[in-house]
């Protein structure tokens, strides 16, 4: 019974607060109720009224009416505090599983100031902030993440209790864009890469000088100039040389390197490795089932690798942007954004 009621309520709320990265608040989607203190205040007014009646005391009547009217006035004030406010998700954050992931919102006040606005999501709260009338402000809400993949809080609650804390007006934002949660880095055991050309030494040997190169089998996407055609002629194997002299010693981080480990653990190992490699200047590549990221270096590359680890095998959340038209969420715009 309660469940049915709750579901119906949720549907009703969802109609009023559609999924969107940007939500402006008005009478349609602001809810307002007295807080616990507000209820006690109501009881207090009743007690004062009875005191006034029994003692036939006009001034107690007057005080009661005054406070009662202020309560109603506060209701409008609290409501107005939120109405006209617009909250836009500007950047769903990125982070490692278990960390708090920052969600950047831009809150712009309407004609009136928005005072003591609190954002919260599940257990995570943000200290109240104030926005003067007509101005905007960036706020960052940390959302706790549990595991890697896409994280999209179902509802981000926006609430205000200003001025007296006797009433609370609240609404929700139901963001579309998910945050990307990287696997929690776990120190990887010293395991060899499976991407080898048969000769273990050549992959492992510390290289000195210009002439040393890492040899590995050809894969789709390798430049034809890199293929060691002489060797091909000799052995019939297409082998590619990555010259350390030009771009360091490319190292491959490989999903298949950790025999016996569970997929999630592998991803955690890889994440750790990516972070380790990021400290040096050695280019590295990432080899995931169904996705290969070419060796490269730099922050953008690290982020790209981590993202690939994060969303590997994960479906983006349903009803994302323009889901109603059957288009699927894809990563391209996100990357462009990050690069910008």
């Amino acid at each position, binding site marked *: 019974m309660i469940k049915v009621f709750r579901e119906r309520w949720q549907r009703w709320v969802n109609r009023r607060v559609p999924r969107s990265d940007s939500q402006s608040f008005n009478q349609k989607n602001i809810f307002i109720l007295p807080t616990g203190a507000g209820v006690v205040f109501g009881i207090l007014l009743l007690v004062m009224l009875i005191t006034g009646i029994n003692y036939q*005391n*006009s*001034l107690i*009547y007057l*005080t009661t009416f*005054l406070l009662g009217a202020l309560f109603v006035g506060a209701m409008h004030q609290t409501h*107005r505090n939120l109405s006209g406010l617009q909250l836009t998700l500007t950047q769903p954050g990125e982070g490692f599983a278990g960390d708090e992931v920052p969600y950047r919102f831009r809150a712009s006040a309407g004609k009136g100031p928005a005072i003591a606005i609190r954002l919260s999501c599940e257990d995570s709260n943000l200290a109240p902030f104030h926005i*003067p009338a007509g101005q905007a402000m960036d706020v960052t809400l940390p959302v706790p993440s549990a595991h890697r993949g896409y994280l999209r809080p179902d509802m981000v609650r926006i609430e205000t209790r200003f001025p007296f804390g006797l009433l609370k007006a609240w609404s929700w934002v139901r963001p579309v864009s998910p945050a990307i949660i990287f696997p929690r880095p776990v120190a990887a055991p010293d395991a060899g890469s499976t991407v080898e050309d048969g000769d273990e030494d050549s992959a492992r040997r510390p290289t000195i000088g210009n002439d040393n190169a890492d040899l590995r089998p050809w894969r789709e996407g390798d430049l034809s100039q890199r293929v060691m055609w002489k060797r091909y002629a000799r052995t019939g194997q297409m082998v590619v040389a990555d010259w350390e002299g030009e771009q360091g010693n490319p190292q491959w981080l490989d999903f298949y390197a950790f025999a016996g480990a569970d997929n999630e653990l592998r991803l955690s190992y890889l994440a750790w490795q990516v972070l380790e490699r990021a400290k040096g200047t050695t280019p590295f590549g990432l080899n995931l089932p169904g996705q290969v990221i070419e060796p490269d270096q730099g922050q953008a590359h690290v982020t790209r690798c981590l993202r690939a680890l994060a969303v590997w095998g994960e479906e983006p959340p349903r009803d994302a942007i323009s889901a109603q038209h059957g288009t699927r969420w894809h990563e391209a715009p996100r990357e462009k954004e990050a690069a910008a």
Partner: protein
Amino acid sequence: MKLTQAFSLGREAVEPANALPSNALLWLIGSFAILLAPQWDRLPIWLVAACGILAVWRWLAQEGRVRLPGRWLRTGIMLVLIAVYVATVQGRFTVDTAASFFVLAVGLKWLETRSTRDFYVLFFILVYLAGVNFLFQQNILWALVNFMAVALLLVGLQVLNAPDLPSDMPSGWRRLGGLLLKTLPVVVLLFVFFPRMAPLWSVPLVSGEARSGISDTMRPGDISNLAQSSERAFRATFGGEMPAYRDRYWRGLVLDYLDGETWRQGREEGFRRPGRIAMDGGVGPLDGREYDVLMEPTDQRWAFALEGSSAVSDNVVEEGDDLFRFRRPADSTMRYRLALDESRSPGNAELSPAERRRFLQLPASGNPRARELARELDQRFSDEGVVDSLLSRFREQEYFYTLRPPAMPEEGIDALLFDQKRGFCAHYAGATTFVLRAAGIPARVVVGYQGGDSGAGDEYLIVRQYDAHAWVEVWLEGQGWVRIDPTAAISPARIESGLRDAVAEEGSFLEDEVLSAQKYGDMAMVQWASLQLDRINYQWQRWVVGYQGQSQMDLMSRLPGGIGMRELGYLTAGIVGAGLLIAGLFSALQLRRGERRDDFQKVLLSWHRACESAGVPVRQGETPSTLADRLAQARPSVTETARRFARMVNSHYYKASSESDGQELRRMRRLLGTMKRQLREASKGRQPHSESGTTS
């Protein structure tokens, strides 16, 4: 999962003692201090001191200079203070004791105010304390002080809810003021129309303490203490002419039993359960013989009345000895109405033997010289002759009326009559009654007030404590009770124009009251200001404080249509409903206006929707041109229209356009219409392609 749990555990840190914003706490402490002010004279000193110390302690803890006490110390402090409280209260239960308990509770709560919740608990107690204060003090200045304290509390709440509000935003005071202005009409309407029901049940007395004012015993010297106070006793308005000064004898009590040197009431007033509060002191204009008294609380049942009065309002009843009593002790300001009734002179009623005994009672021994004088007079004169000769003795011999009588510890009446010859009204009234009784003439001491000065505009009479007076009533055969006043014989000025003139030479008038305006009666400005203030207060008491039951009905009966209690109820509901409705409509209108203002926004939104339905999701922070470009990529057929539209949006927002807003808007709408049509046409042909193109 484990990680998140660990996380949420870490987040619930223990709240430090200064979790509350300091400035919010300061407002609360300030409000508490103000709320104590109206009660300063009734709260025990130890309680005020304890509260002060505890509040300061809390404040120092907030500043980080000291620590808040631990649980044991806190419990210890609590137990000690409650024990002291119980010891002082001694089982009496009045509002007074309840109020001091409230104060104690607030004081103790200071040490436990750590969280927002505690703050609200304090807020509620303090608001109720403000309400309770109104039971004690209803004059306009204290009311303002009280309302100010409530306002402080409300500002404090705002600070609590937004402690770091930047200074360029409207302050708590301004916001509160705005709210008050908006709600004031509703408050006034509610105040006028909310049905004033009769009390639902009988409630404890406001106070059980004795107040300054006349008491039911009289020792020589008692009234001269009262004479040092300029506190107001009551105010009276007359329907007709005010009686002359010398006729303003306000009878309150009859003291007929002499116990050593002390006069008491012979008939003890037995304990009666206090009835419900009746504030209905009569309504409508006063008729020629009626008068209306607004009495300050005395916590006693007696009402003061001129000689020969009868009760008009219900809240006073006539009891024996031509005295009037309230049904419930006057624990708050009382208004009652009486009428002067010439026909009620006692006439020829006979004294019963029991009454005769009562009014002839004297102690078995003492004051032999006074008894000797009585015997002598009794032998020489008739009853009336005794009275006359006694009064002429006072008039002719060197008797003085003084506020500084010498001490007469033993045989006081003899000492007064024969040695010192200096005394106050109580001395002379007691001595006169003694002599008359000794001469076999029934007599009694009457205590009350004599005199009273006009208030501002001569509209009403103000009677103050220094007008307290004692005189004598004597039973004369054929005439009944006759008032005689020995003080009039000794110091006619006291009766003709009041105490100030009577003791002018002595300079003892209000010698202990430095701040009283009455003391500086000869300084016109001070006197004038004081009287104007009193007039404002009088009107406030009559029309605001006294607006209850019958006075509401009286006002309503002047309005068209028969408005009864039930109609008032409907009216109140109507006011509340209408108030809510108007406020709701107002804010809805405001919102609508805000929406209508930005038509461009609407057009833009409509464009965004069109883009999305064409499979081009709008991204955050995208400029119109890039959106148009992407739309053009997806649907080449609208390239031209989309780009033109984007240019127009840009030129509108960057104020590059020379057109007026209306023209611009029309063109944009037209263009949008075209674009939508083109999109529809294009999508018919391209539907299958777009599906395969985006899902890959």
